[in-house]
């Protein structure tokens, strides 16, 4: 019995293609980027080992602190803006009324559009001469309609467009998590005479704890590395007002062809992202909770 069962189990060979493929394009690059950070390479020819010189160059990079500052600002603004919005809308959309189902279809529309489509759309919308911004900017306190051209506003405008793209995704997470909250909890609370607000804070929020953490980690780590939209909308400008660290990395590597230094910046980004998610997970006890559940 046991032998025939063992014989019928799929061997490790079934997983081998996926593992090898992922190793080549997902795992190897993580090690290669560390290696490349110790080399000089212009994108052609072979990387040449130069030891710590790229790392030493970090100290001379006048854009570095600006880049880190802009990245952290964008990360914080994204988290503060997207989390409550996605949470509220997700809980609301978890209802099953027909109107909500129809509206939800619209909400999730941005999920379908590419970063490129969203970026070129908003650049056109925010055009200070012919776009929506020209006509309606005055109602938002920007009479000249120049949103992306203003060093003070550009990063916040980008954060808004990033939210436009990603809030639907996080809404979806909250919606499906809210639907999994046992109804009995609400019924019990209702018997005890808890108000709706009280139910939201005493049942819904604590029950969504894991989702809030997961969504937050995705936003935080995502904001650290996402740069395509900024490249498309402002290319880091005006000046260096939106030149976040990952965009700085891209420009150094693929515009300036200093791949070694770009790799240094990539390692910095990965380290920051990993550290940030470990801190969030540890602080919130998320790791302990999930492993408890797995053990049970």
């Amino acid at each position, binding site marked *: 019995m046991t032998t025939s069962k063992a014989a019928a189990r799929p061997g490790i060979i079934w997983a081998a293609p996926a593992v090898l493929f992922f190793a080549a394009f997902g795992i190897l690059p*993580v090690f290669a980027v560390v290696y490349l950070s110790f080399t000089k390479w212009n994108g052609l020819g072979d990387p040449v080992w130069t030891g710590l010189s790229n790392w030493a160059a970090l100290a001379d990079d006048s854009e570095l602190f600006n880049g880190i500052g802009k990245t952290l600002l964008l990360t914080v603004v994204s988290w503060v803006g997207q989390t409550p919005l996605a949470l509220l809308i997700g809980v609301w959309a978890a209802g099953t009324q027909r109107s909500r189902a129809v509206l939800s279809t619209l909400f999730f529309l941005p999920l379908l559009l590419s970063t490129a489509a969203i970026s070129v759309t908003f650049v056109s919308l925010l055009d200070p001469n012919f776009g929506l911004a020209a006509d309606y900017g005055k109602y938002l306190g920007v009479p000249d309609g120049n949103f992306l051209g203003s060093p003070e506003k550009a990063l916040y405008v980008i954060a808004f467009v990033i939210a436009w793209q990603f809030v639907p995704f996080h809404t979806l997470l909250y919606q499906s998590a809210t639907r999994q909250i046992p109804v009995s909890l609400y019924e019990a609370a209702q018997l005890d005479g808890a108000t709706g607000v009280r139910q939201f804070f005493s049942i819904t929020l604590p029950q969504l704890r894991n989702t809030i953490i997961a969504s937050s980690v995705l936003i935080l780590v995502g904001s650290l590395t996402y740069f395509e939209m900024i490249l498309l909308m402002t290319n880091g400008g005006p000046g260096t007002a939106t030149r976040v660290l990952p965009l700085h990395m891209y420009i150094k590597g693929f515009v300036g062809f200093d791949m070694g230094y770009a790799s240094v910046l990539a390692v910095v980004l990965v380290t920051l992202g990993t550290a940030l998610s470990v801190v969030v997970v540890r602080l919130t006890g998320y790791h302990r909770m999930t492993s408890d559940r797995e053990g049970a």
Partner: protein
Amino acid sequence: MSLDLARRPAHRSRSVPPPSAGPRRRGRPNFPAGIAATVWLLIVAVPVYFVVITGFRSQDQYIEQGPLDLPTSPTLDNFTSLFDLGFTRFLTNSLVVAFGTVALVLAVALPAAYAIVRNPSRSVRSMFNVFLLGLAVPAQAVIVPIYLIITRLQLYDTLLAIILPTAAFSLPIAIVVLTSTLRDIPGELYEAMTVDGATPARVFGRLVLPLSRPGLVSVGIFVGLGAWNGFLFPLVLTQSQDQRVLPLGLWNFQSQYGTNVPGLMAAVVLSALPVLALYLFGRRHLLSGLAAGFGK
């Protein structure tokens, strides 16, 4: 199934309380959420409306009329002129990339998920953990080594250069979703086939493949969407107009003919049409796939 049926009526009573539940139960937690949802709905709808109506407007009208006015004489000229600009080629390339990526991911991910679910050995478990860790590797951070690998494989500026890394970075989520689909197949079914002396290949063909269809559809839609919309890999790994995909085509259009906003918006519509069709057809699969992948 029965669980789902049991939950649904009770769930509805929570979100649409009967009149007897009284106003206290009803609105309060939903009220701020309802406002947030309405405001966000407008924020989502206005740009989408702008894209669609502008795509049907002539360029003269765009400059003369307000950006949100309905076009007085809608035209299809913007769409027909896209074909002169090479968009047929971009469309074909995007289709090749999307289908190629989906085929590759499904072909290696399903056997791997089968091994992970049915083979309890330590080595297979650790492979699963590698994929779980892989969820956290941002593509932007390893774009330099991926460029190195692709140029070393002599694949630079080919569609395969886009497909390979896109598929690799879709693998972790595909395997997580498919693993959870396969875990839902009752163990008795596997054992019944095993008792009859079926080989793993036979179990795979007769049991795993047919029963994992919902998971395959969800993963296929999700991965295909990501490949269709991807910008980073095409940006860095291709160059010539022949290998250009739609998102790059949009960007290029904007930098070359930036003032032709109606043409650009027509291109945005064109790039989103296949996805919209897919969404209408497979909305449930897409959303449940997304939620299953990240919600757990």
